[in-house]
């Protein structure tokens, strides 16, 4: 590409860098060119692949003969970066994996590290309840974005506005408590970063009161819409046995009939004190996954209501100065907290050697962390069990033999998030 117009050659504001030299060579031919079969790349930049997914379609007319999803376009090396940060610092990069439900990653990582530190039972109850409440609130916001983008893929614009409006109300609450709308790293090892501001619970009550009306709007828009049901029913059918064999978890698995929900199977962080039921269906098609996610949003709000009523007063961080930062005012007064603060900030805390697998029920399924520590103040290895990596892999099985328009519906109904798929 030598004949570049001059104003590209200098790369605008980075004259020292010659942009053409930086490029890796073009990605090689992903699929050999068959003579009769036309190969089309539903490529990394596509309005309805929910991120940077490339599905290489071998098509005969409108029908997909062969579908090969190609991922890796958002590979960020998060696990390698986490190996070079302290235990608490690693939360900032792990937080950016599943950016629709960011607190899911923090939750699983914190549970794992707390198990290694053997302080799981000393986490204050209020911190555990706040964690449950925020996990459920981010589950609702994640399902809102899924519903909005999935509806846009099928041509319905207004559900997007309703869903994003509901999400904005929840994000205002989350921002008030944690300081940021997304990637807020609100859960820390040992508890939660800060207590709820005053007046927050009243705003939560207002949201809880408004929520049923909003959910009715979302349901009325799509659930009985004939276009929606025609496009969704019978598309991407996965039976219970296939769903388990392909490693599906979360709404995708529950829509095929297996009611496997980690909040019920391995209750963590006071989940066993609230009663909520696990919505399941048996058809296993896109419409079943759609209904399961809508019901899940209502169940999540039910949990938030129960947590709101049972919220205990008390500290929100484990009172172990070697793990949690001492309160700021005490640093000026007591030498002990100055030393602890200094040690934690400059060196972080050490975790006893060993390995642990801790998993959490994320909006997309089981998000697990296999954490290996060798006693240092940095993780030796953080392996993520990404829910949408396995959910998306099922696309290889169900995509062939359908129309291209159905592949779009399947991608939307599996709800992949590519920060989590590509890590």
């Amino acid at each position: 590409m030598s004949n570049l117009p001059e104003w590209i050659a200098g790369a605008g504001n980075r004259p020292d860098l010659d942009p053409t030299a930086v490029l890796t060579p073009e990605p090689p031919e992903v699929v050999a060119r068959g003579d009769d079969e036309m190969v089309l790349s539903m490529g990394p930049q596509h309005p309805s692949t929910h991120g940077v997914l490339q599905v290489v379609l071998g098509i005969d007319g409108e029908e997909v003969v062969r579908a090969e999803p190609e991922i890796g376009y958002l590979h960020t090396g998060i696990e390698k970066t986490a190996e070079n940060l302290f235990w608490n610092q690693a939360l900032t990069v792990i937080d950016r994996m599943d950016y629709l439900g960011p607190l899911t990653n923090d939750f699983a990582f914190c549970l794992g590290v707390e198990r290694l530190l053997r302080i799981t039972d000393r986490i204050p109850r209020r911190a555990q309840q706040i964690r449950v409440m925020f996990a459920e609130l981010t589950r609702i916001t994640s399902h809102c974005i899924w519903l909005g983008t999935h509806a846009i893929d099928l041509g319905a614009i207004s559900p997007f506005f309703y869903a994003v409006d509901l999400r904005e109300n929840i994000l205002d609450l989350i921002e008030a408590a944690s300081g940021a709308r997304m990637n807020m790293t609100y859960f820390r090892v040992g508890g939660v970063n800060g207590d709820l501001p005053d007046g927050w619970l009243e705003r939560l009550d207002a949201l809880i009161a408004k929520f049923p009306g909003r959910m009715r709007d979302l349901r009325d828009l799509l659930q009985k819409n004939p276009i929606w049901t025609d496009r969704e029913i019978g598309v991407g059918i996965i039976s219970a046995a296939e769903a388990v064999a392909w490693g599906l978890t979360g709404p995708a698995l529950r829509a095929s009939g297996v009611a496997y929900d980690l909040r019920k199977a391995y209750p963590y962080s006071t989940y066993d004190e609230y009663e909520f039921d696990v919505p399941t269906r048996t058809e296993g098609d896109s419409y079943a996954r759609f209904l399961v996610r809508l019901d899940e949003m209502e169940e999540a709000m039910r949990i938030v209501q129960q947590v709101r009523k049972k919220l205990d007063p008390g500290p929100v961080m484990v009172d172990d100065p070697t793990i949690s930062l001492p309160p700021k005012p005490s640093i000026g007064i007591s030498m002990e907290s100055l030393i602890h603060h200094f040690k934690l900030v400059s060196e972080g805390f050490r975790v006893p050697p060993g390995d642990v697998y801790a998993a959490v029920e994320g909006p997309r399924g089981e998000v697990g962390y296999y954490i290996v520590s060798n006693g240092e103040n940095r993780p030796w290895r953080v392996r993520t069990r990404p829910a949408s990596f396995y959910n998306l892999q099922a696309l290889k099985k169900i995509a062939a033999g359908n129309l291209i328009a159905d592949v779009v519906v399947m991608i939307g109904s599996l709800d992949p998030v590519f920060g989590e798929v590509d890590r």
Partner: protein
Amino acid sequence: MADRSFQTVSTAVDPTAVRQPIDDVDEIVRTTAGQLLEVLARLKSQGYAQLTDVGGVDYLERSPRFDVVYHLTALPTRASGVADVGRPKRARVLCGVDDGAAVPSAVRLWPNADWPEREVFDLFGITFGDHPDLRRIQMPADWEGHPLRKDYPLRGPARDRTPRPPFANKENVGSRVPPTGEVAERLRQEIFERMRGERSGESEATS
């Protein structure tokens, strides 16, 4: 207060040997590449219907350098309610692999082993025996080197484009206490002297 015993332990070369009293999995099996398929088939027949995750870990100095970690969950394979699912059992299979050795692929037992095995090959360089389509999944196809290995520099060998600001130099090979620079070192020394001075000055009861 937390027991401080582990604060001063030296770095364990093989963390998986240290068995913590944690009940995250019900069964842990350590095998080698030879009997891996047989162990996995036995576990599958015992009811572990879902291969939850396949991951790789690189223990630099340990004799079988890599570990391929399989997590299995005993899920029912037909429509079942919350009660039938209950608390499914979990198993972890650790398969020690040397650098350059191959591991049999588990794709025939569970179809969803395809992508994670490709990822372990891509990021660790562990080849899987009869894998249908073993090629890179995360990195560009022409990438050299396997990034998640411990001896692979964090910022990548050939891609060190932007000059690093001096304060951002982080050690990334192996894990050692990070160099905190002389200013931090002086502050640390001064704090420890003051602590020692205080303790020797007052009586022991206050600490």
